[in-house]
């Protein structure tokens, strides 16, 4: 019945929505930023623990959102663990380009399993669901204290 939506709602997204990874409060986090989408009310808090070597040792989140936004933040926390801050920042830029459709020739290898979120390009109303997590990460990497808003 929902055949047209298969590109948007891939099985991986349902899986992460049902069982979000790293869904916990991190007591020893050294970065903590709130992200908010005022258009839909999605809220998340991102926790990072970054070592002296600029490597993201741990990432987790709390909050509530739609399947796209939950899967996006869940996948993100998985993938950035072990990355340097610079690599995570580079990935943010690639992800942003993939979801806003500005670059057609996305390096799918670099983006890895985040490619399951490429479908939002065809749904302008849903792009922000996918990017909220990443804008929050961007703010956390820049060590901004104030909450992130998609608007």
């Amino acid at each position: 019945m929902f055949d047209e939506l298969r590109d948007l709602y891939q099985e991986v997204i349902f899986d992460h929505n049902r069982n979000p990874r790293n869904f916990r409060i991190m007591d020893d986090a050294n970065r903590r930023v709130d992200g908010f989408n005022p258009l839909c009310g999605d809220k998340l808090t991102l926790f990072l623990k970054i070592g002296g070597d600029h490597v993201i040792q741990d990432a987790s989140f709390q909050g509530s959102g739609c399947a796209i936004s939950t899967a996006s933040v869940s996948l993100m926390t998985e993938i950035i663990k072990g990355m340097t801050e610079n690599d995570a920042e580079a990935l943010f830029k690639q992800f942003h380009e993939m979801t806003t459709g500005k670059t057609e020739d996305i390096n799918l290898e670099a983006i890895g399993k985040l490619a399951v979120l490429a479908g939002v390009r065809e749904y302008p109303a849903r792009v922000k669901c996918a990017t909220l997590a990443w804008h929050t990460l961007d703010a956390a990497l820049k060590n901004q204290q104030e909450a992130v808003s998609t608007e």
Partner: protein
Amino acid sequence: MSTFPIEHIRADFPILGEKIRNKPLVYLDNAASCQKPQAVIDAIVRTYSHEYANIHRGVHTLSVKATDRFEAAREKVRAFINASSEKEIIFVRGATEAINLVAQSYGKSQFKAGDEIVISAMEHHANIVPWQMLCQQIGTVLRVAPINQQGELLFDEFEKLLNSNTKLVAITHMSNALGSINPVEKIIAAAHAKNIPVLLDGAQAIPHMPVDVQALDCDFYVFSGHKLYGPSGTGVLYGKQALLEAMPPYQGGGDMIRQVTFEKTTYAGLPHKFEAGTPAIAEVIGLGAAIDYVSAIGMDNVAAYEAELLDYATDQAQQIKGLNIIGQAEHKGGILSFTLDHIHPHDIGTMLDSLGIAVRAGHHCAMPVMDFYGVPATARASFAMYNTRQEIDILMQGIKSLIEVFG
């Protein structure tokens, strides 16, 4: 009921024949904005094709004609809500602008620091923020009457808020997020007993029920044209003449003056005092056509038909496991706001859209209502006189299917 001309009505709305994602459109986002009948579209085309010029200015034929049509629309609005005079009908851009006008003109000139304005917990942001802005400007205090879990105003609590500092009650006639219809007669009687004027936000109520401002005895009534099958960019502020007379202009400019020199300006009389600048001329004429259209069907008939639709939809929805109806007031208009266990409203909105069904998913410009129910958002199906039981069946089937997909 059986005599309600639903097939004729549907045929009058060209957009209802559209396909969305290759499915027949099922338009259930009427609380956000209603679709337009051909009569309204024709009125706008006719105006621009044959009868358009600026109004209240030229002596030339077209200007006179456009002015006549514009002022005829004012008379149609007057008759539709049974105001006593056309002077009490102010054209604005929408209900939002009407409330801002009352806050900035009436409120700012009449209220002082410590004065209180009473609203309810089910208001749209348009009936919250203009008052908060006024509070910041002059130190008035906003008081909020609570609601119960069904989404009904707690009348006793509301009444307790009325005191000698209360200068205005501003309350919705019908909630856009919950569908609750407030007991406005009782509210007005209680407020008037303490000489407190009442503004009713009729943005949701006006397309669903007959409204008689004299019978209600409300002091202000505001609504938007686009929710009454008319064009966007139109709205109406009704105010009792004595109140409007005493109020200073809201905006300055052309059309609202009697005489201007660099030393002093005298203002035009009602209603023009509040209509600075060139208004939405063709759109207001279109609103007149929308009023002719709904009046011919009869608002009592519309209300009866929609009540039956809502009952049917509510019955069907209650049979779906995991569906929670948000807003179950005893007295309710055609709005079905709901959540599904473990499925976010945005996912509901996208999935239903793929089936051609347009619903709203979000906070409905009523974030405090969402907070009250502890949900970030709801999905909302809102009905109009052109909706059918078959469309509700399609909606319910869609909801059942997406619950299966999300598993």
